[in-house]
């Protein structure tokens, strides 16, 4: 994975797509649509990743075969996710259930509006919408870090030269918690929620905290000056600063592939 198109397609599949399943938890409008969503859907890129998206809260049994949408090229993935004209993916699996895609597709449209509101939509956004936007963007960013950390040149350099360790990320104003781990081999893993490898009472190697909602919004939109943010107490960083610094570089690089919307 070396080209910009490849990296971007991996981001769409591994970082953005899983947010479809998170959307009903964040927006009431999505919960309504998700009521009728039964069909698990799998996006697969030839020679690349495959991501399975399940209806939230629904147990997927043996009979619930996913419908696979097979993409042939990274460009096809990217153009699909950005609503540009491209040939459709090849459906594989229980294609007779394709009608079940309708609620899924409605959710993807809603996800796009939530992640990429227009300036006007931002200006008129309700508190629920803004919270959903921040919550989902937070998840996308965390999932993007291992992709960028492995494939993007400057990010790889930052990660290679960073110490190993676990960084937790918090935004208490939204009760958001996440984690990123750099292992001894220089590989990044990440997730939303409490870090699985952190025993109770043990501190992470580094802790990053966005002290209020506005700071989180500025950070996710690429508007935050990190040095100034830390000095002014808008962002708290404790512990292994070089790890936090390197992961900050990787976070910054995400927008080279997934540009944040202008407010």
């Amino acid at each position, binding site marked *: 994975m070396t080209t910009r198109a490849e990296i971007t397609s991996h981001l769409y599949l591994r970082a953005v797509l899983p947010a479809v399943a998170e959307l009903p938890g964040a927006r009431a409008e999505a919960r309504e649509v998700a009521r009728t969503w039964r069909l698990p859907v799998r996006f697969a890129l030839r020679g690349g990743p495959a991501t399975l998206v399940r209806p939230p809260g629904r147990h997927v049994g043996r009979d619930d075969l996913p419908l696979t949408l097979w993409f042939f090229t990274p460009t096809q993935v990217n153009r699909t996710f950005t609503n540009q004209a491209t040939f459709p993916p090849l459906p594989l699996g229980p294609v007779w259930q394709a009608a079940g895609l309708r609620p899924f597709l409605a959710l993807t449209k809603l996800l796009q509006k939530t992640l990429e509101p227009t300036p006007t939509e931002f200006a008129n956004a309700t508190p629920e919408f803004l919270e959903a936007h921040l919550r989902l963007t937070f998840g996308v960013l965390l999932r993007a870090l291992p992709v960028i950390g492995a494939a993007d040149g400057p990010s790889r350099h930052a990660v290679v030269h960073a110490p190993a360790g676990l960084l937790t990320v918090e935004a208490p104003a939204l009760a958001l918690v996440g984690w990123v781990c750099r292992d001894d081999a220089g590989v990044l893993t990440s997730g939303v929620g409490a870090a699985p490898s952190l025993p109770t009472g043990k501190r992470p190697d580094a802790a990053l905290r966005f002290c209020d909602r506005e700071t989180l919004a500025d950070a996710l939109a690429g508007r935050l000056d990190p*040095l*100034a943010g830390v*000095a002014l107490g808008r962002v708290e960083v404790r*512990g292994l600063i070089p790890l936090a610094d390197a992961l900050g570089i990787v976070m910054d690089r995400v927008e080279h592939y997934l540009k944040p919307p202008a407010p």
Partner: protein
Amino acid sequence: MHTEPTRFAQSRALFERAAAVIPGGIPGHTAPAATLPGASPYFARRAWGCRYEDVDGNEFLDLLCAYGPIVLAYDHPEVEEAAARHARDGNCFNHPTPVMVELAERLVALVDFAAWSVFGKNGADMTTWALGVAREHTGRKKILKVEGAYHGAHAWCSPGHGGWIEEDRMHIHGFPWNDLDAAETLLRRHRSQVAAVITTAFHHPAFGDSALPAPGFLAGLEAACRRDGVVLILDDVRSGFRLHLGGSHRVYGFTPDLICFSKALGNGHPISATLGSAALRRAAGRVFLTGSFWQSAVPMAASLACLHVLERENVVLRLARTGAALREGLVAAAARHDVPVRYTGADAMPFLTFVGETNFHRSQLWCQEMVTRGIFVHPHHNWFLCAAHGPTEVKEVLTAAEGAFAAVRAEFGPTSPAPA
């Protein structure tokens, strides 16, 4: 860790103004993000001896000494009088002044292998120029450096992530400190292509313990360089004039071809220098060297006075004695509180971390507690002593340290054999 918004209110207010017109507010090594954000001052107002006052009127006993330049004392009367005397005649002219010649003569007399000297403003001016001299002398491109060593903020060596490209570093190769085998492997791999090896006298990386040279390491490096026709550059910017008046190589038993000084050279006045062997004079003459302020007279006058005081008062010995007392006291205090420390580096430039910890949580708390008690220290960067530190100041530091170690113990518990 707690912040102290009231205690540093003016610092914060000034920083808010700074952030509006300066990227990052305060960039570089003095950036609050790199030290104790919210828990230490951001702006200074004045200083004297080994103390300084911030813009909120808080006074600190300083163990950073402006990150090295203050080797005698802030506002040292002889240095400042020499500077003021010269300033009355002027500082920056169309030409250098006689004081440049006097300073070059003085430095060449001090440094055993040196036959010539040049001047700049910052350490990185000199380390970067020294690489150019090595390349000019050898006709080669590659430079070997110690991994994690700091030589300035130029593209070839900046610790920052932005603003440099792969091509800036394609001929820069690193080897671990104290690993002579690794250095020799690189020399073999790039035989006849290496222009220089650049090293510090001892290893003092940011965010890491300092490390003195292993027996034979620096002499072995010198021998390998001589064998392969490689220029050996000693970056003495940080340690210069604190370990030995004639260059830190004198302490560790090796001889470089070029030595770079800055920081303590002017006791706070902006000046740097590179001195070199006779063999490199010709190449040095061919590498263009200049800067608008590099021949300014006032810092050179200050430097001459500084060198005079350093020698007259045997400051190097004083720093070693004060540093030893500080080390003994801090190590013992930490042990008493069951939070043992690693105290590394030269005694005149120590660095303290906690046993069993590599993520600086304890260091950050300890340093914050020290700052609360009026002692400025740094959790991620080596400290510096100056001639103004004496037994009284050591006692003051140790008194504060008792409370700071107690706070670390209260927060983290005693350090167990299998530390957290």
